[in-house]
């Protein structure tokens, strides 16, 4: 039986033990006291922690609020056991809070982020089985690691939470590197499996005018490829992912098909970076069920998004980054007019790298958006004009 809830929803019915949280924090602090060590055969302990404060000028967006909130954090501890050169087991526990973020509903629990067994096959191939972090674009695998990100939150256009994508996959993957000695080496990864996700439904009683309904992505098949180039620090990527969504908004016995594909440019120098990604989703949707109408209005929707990030390290410690993030949505029934420009965000962040593993950051966003902001008079933000939204986030990230 499906469970509906207003935001923030429980992220998944996985592990929900509050009692694990203090243990996780203690492990983080204890492991942070000394550098992580890794022997060819043995156990490695790693972790990261980000705590931030966010404040918006109007409404709630990306977890921020008008009153200001410190309910923005993530912490993870990774245990890595290398049984041999070929066999490795990786388990990562995490706790995440994103305030009242519409796209990343999260609970208070500590959950198993990943848990997989890795077997190296031959020299250039790797097989993984279990709950895997999904290789999708530049940031998906490191989406919570504050010390590695130029901004606290990832671009909405590409990484809009669990609703439209897969942070992890319960299944299997096979990766292979082709032409490893060439300047044009090619990394490929194919993965199969399913994951917990959500569907959203209009509910005028809810803060954002929407409720999240638990759903399951099944029969997912994805590919990610990265092409290294002779230009040091420049790589080009592309990928696709297709799955069937089994959720409460579909007719019993039917599943909606979702497809997404993307391209990436990742250029990182000693003192600068340029990153850009573009992504498109296509999916079937019963818009009648989405709008909570008593009729079925089956149609097709397409979401497009792109972002560009540029940055420069003015000194070895101080980095300045800029970002433009654009998302659009359209459907073949014209039930969602005006959403071709769903969200456009211009952002800047100032990073102060105290140490390689300790980063202080403050960022500012100025967006024109039709995303629900939870405004009392306009919860779903479906007025004729897009709303100006401005918010800032400041915080500290550490990893070890």
């Amino acid at each position, binding site marked *: 039986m499906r469970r509906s809830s207003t935001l923030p929803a429980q992220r998944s019915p996985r592990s929900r033990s509050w009692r694990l949280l203090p243990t996780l924090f203690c492990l983080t602090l204890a492991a942070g006291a000394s550098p992580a060590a890794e022997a060819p055969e043995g156990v*490695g302990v790693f972790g990261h922690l980000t705590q931030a404060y966010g404040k918006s000028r109007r409404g709630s967006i990306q977890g921020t609020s008008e009153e200001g909130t410190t309910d923005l954090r993530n912490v993870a501890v*990774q245990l890595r056991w290398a049984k041999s050169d070929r066999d490795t087991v990786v388990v*990562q526990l995490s706790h995440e809070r994103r305030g009242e973020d519409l796209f990343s509903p999260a609970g208070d629990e500590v959950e198993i982020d990943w848990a*997989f067994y890795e077997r190296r096959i031959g020299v250039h191939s790797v097989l993984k089985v279990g709950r895997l972090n999904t290789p999708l674009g530049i940031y998906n695998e490191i989406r919570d*690691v504050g010390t*590695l990100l130029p901004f606290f939150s990832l671009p909405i256009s590409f990484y809009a939470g669990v609703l439209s994508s897969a942070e992890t996959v319960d299944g299997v993957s096979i990766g292979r590197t082709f032409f490893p000695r060439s300047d044009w080496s090619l990394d490929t990864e194919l993965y199969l499996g399913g994951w917990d996700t959500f569907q959203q439904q209009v509910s005028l009683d809810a803060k954002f005018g929407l409720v999240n309904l638990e759903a399951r992505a099944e029969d997912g098949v994805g590919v990610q490829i990265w092409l290294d180039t002779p230009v040091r620090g420049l790589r080009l990527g592309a990928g696709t992912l297709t799955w069937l969504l089994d959720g409460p908004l579909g007719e019993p016995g039917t599943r909606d098909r979702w497809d997404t594909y993307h391209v990436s440019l990742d250029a990182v120098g000693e003192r600068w970076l340029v990153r850009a990604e573009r992504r498109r989703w296509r999916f079937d949707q019963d818009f009648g069920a989405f709008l909570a109408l008593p009729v079925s209005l089956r149609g097709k929707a397409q979401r497009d998004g792109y972002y560009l990030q540029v940055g420069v390290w003015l000194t*070895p410690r101080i980095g300045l980054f800029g970002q433009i993030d654009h998302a659009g949505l359209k459907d073949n029934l014209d039930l969602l007019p005006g959403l071709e420009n769903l969200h456009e965000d211009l952002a800047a962040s100032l990073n102060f790298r105290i140490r390689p593993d300790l980063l202080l950051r403050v960022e500012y966003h100025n967006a024109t958006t039709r995303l629900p902001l939870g405004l009392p008079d306009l919860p779903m933000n479906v007025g004729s004009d897009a709303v100006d939204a401005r918010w800032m986030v400041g915080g500290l990230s550490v990893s070890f």
Partner: protein
Amino acid sequence: MSTSRVLALLAFVALHATAEAADPVVVVHPSTRVLEVSKAELSKIFLKRLRTWADGSLAQPIDQVPGPVREEFTQWVHGRSVVTIEVYWKRMIFSGRAVPPAEAADDAAVLDFVRRTPGAVGYVSGSAQLDGVRKLDLRE
């Protein structure tokens, strides 16, 4: 010979000597059949993007703890700072892909590991005594 020429010659010798002293020496286990590698290839081996030598045998890199030798090697081979490489390893770790090579405390520890481990490759300062290991030539 004029004074200026003598000074220029002395300056050249001094610079050359400094460069010789600063360049780390890459060492491998004596059984390694590869005689030379490119910097790009060695960089990939130390970043674990390449796991074998050209003859197919397993490469086992060992790093040094942060210090002058590592800084010199990192800039020389990777063309990057130590901080940048550390950030690279954080990315590898937290994407669940790989962990960095083990770190040796000093030249002696590197030489000890390389001497004992077939396929091993490490680097030491130019002044280290290379007993029981073989120097690996690098090409651009």
